[in-house]
């Protein structure tokens, strides 16, 4: 059943082996890489500050847009 529910924020799943660079390249191919990574990280602090040895997993949500105001 298809719905037209609009996500609360744009997001994506990481792929196996992804890091911030690969996600930034995929999601924002037109943007300068450093800038895209900085934005991605600022929207996903819960992943940035996830304590080692935990890392990005394929079931994580990575927001690709800022929080709603």
């Amino acid at each position: 059943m298809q719905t037209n529910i609009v996500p609360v924020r744009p997001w994506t799943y990481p792929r196996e082996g992804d890091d911030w660079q690969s996600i930034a390249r995929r999601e924002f191919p037109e943007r300068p890489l450093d800038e895209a990574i900085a934005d991605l990280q600022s929207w996903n602090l819960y992943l940035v500050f996830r304590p080692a040895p935990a890392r990005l997993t394929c079931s994580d949500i990575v927001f690709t847009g800022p929080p709603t105001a």
Partner: protein
Amino acid sequence: MYQLKISNALVCDGTGSPAYHGDVAIQDGKIVAVGTRLAGDAATVIDAKGLVLAPGFIDSHTHFDAQITWDGLATPSLEHGVTTVINGNCSLTMAPVRAEHRAFVGAVFRQIEEMPAAAFDAGMRWNWETFEEYLASFREALGINVATLAGHSMLRLWVMGDAARERCASAAEIADMQQLLRQCLHAGAIGMSTSWVDIDHEHRPVPCRLAAPEELDALCAVLGEHGAVMQVVPEFWDPDLLCTRIDILGDLSRRHAITVTFSPLFDSNATPDLVPRALERVRLQVAHGARVVPQMQTRPIDVTFEFDVPTSVFSSRPTWWATILKPASETLRDFQDPDVRRQLVDEAYNGMHPIAMEVHFPEFVVSRCHLPRNKPLEGRRLKDIAAERGCDPVELMLDLAVEESLQTRFSAVSVGHNNLERIAGPISDPLVQVGSGDGGAHVTRFATYGDTGYLFSRFVRDAAALTLEQAVFKLTGQIADNWGLQDRGRIRPGLAADLVIFDPECIDRGPEIAVEDLPGEGYRYLRRALGVEQVFVNGSAVYSAQQGYTDARSGQLVSGRARRAA
């Protein structure tokens, strides 16, 4: 002649319909007649005048997976009126587990569910590997009904071995997991649990978190084939993350025609808009055909701790966390080091709160002292003792801990999910199921029992957020409906005679107490029930307030729609 007749009760039948004065007759473990002034004699007649007769309560979020193998009563759940517990939540189950993974599974379970290692090791026989063997290992000793989920992390471990902790699954491995899940459902699992949150004893994501979306989708397809349920732990502390997860669950529910339930729906002063936003999202998904069920616990969070074991209360304060992660001798030394103490005190007042909690050190209560001379301090708040002594409350806590070699027990009381006004509305919402109690878990940190009595005392009697009938429905019929437990949860002829008789004026939870009833060494926290008079499981009396537990072992393995479809 009936075996048992309960007469003159105020019958709350588990549908939410108005209560009525009537009788219930029981024969061969089933309810056989319900009505006012039922004709016919009975071998035993119980006069329940002035008391409520309700279906036995169903506790949908428990972790008795280990305890049930040595304690078929799942104490003290029965005495709180709970006649059915649902185990296997949060991706963690004791089966299917290959022999070579027992040590890992045990370590993860003890870490997440805070079960003392000595008790776990002494109690667990581990004489099974498959799900079917696990259920068979304890079914004969059950005094309570048990329904069990298959844990997604265990499915991965079984199929992938240690790689389950490292990577996504291949297509062939996913197919194997599907087949294994089918076997579990056929053996009696009522669904599958997974988690997007939990970490193992080595602070790595539990295996199910390594699953790619297509793996979860494939497993949900199997659940759909069998009419089974999925339980999941989402990022419950962040509104955007939680709402996004609700959307994911909505999609899975629609695609596979399954009920998905998440726990906990948790209120916090840090994010007071979370619960309303999440409920709005659930409402939207339900309006679009999904079956997404949030579970909300009734009680606030209390955490009891000693400084020789790390506790999450301190996880957001780096100096505290680093200090209590050290061996006890080093923690003791740090607590006496002036420089470290200065940092600790500063962080105590100015540090960040842990996720979803609000921790105020001066409010901590001294709950148990080791030295006789300090016993008068028990039950008192640090700030009150410090005011008498003219010292700082945090310094006082450190001094006490040092004086008693870290054996003083402190309690952080009501540190989360404690705003009655904010919680009363959502907990009465028809979309919200009462759950997330966590029975059998966190046993050395807080008592996870008595949420049923607390629902009546706080939300029916104090806050008047629910009627008596609505509260009973939320603990019985609603859960049975959500989980597909078709022969329980209501008082109706033909259904299982799981029944509780209680006093509506005084049903509640008792104070938190520490008891030493675990196998091996160690203690656990629990609460005794107040106002629960008698409990019946499949027609047999298993508990009464006067006589305690009986010898009846009438509990059953409960299957949902899944088994019937398999």
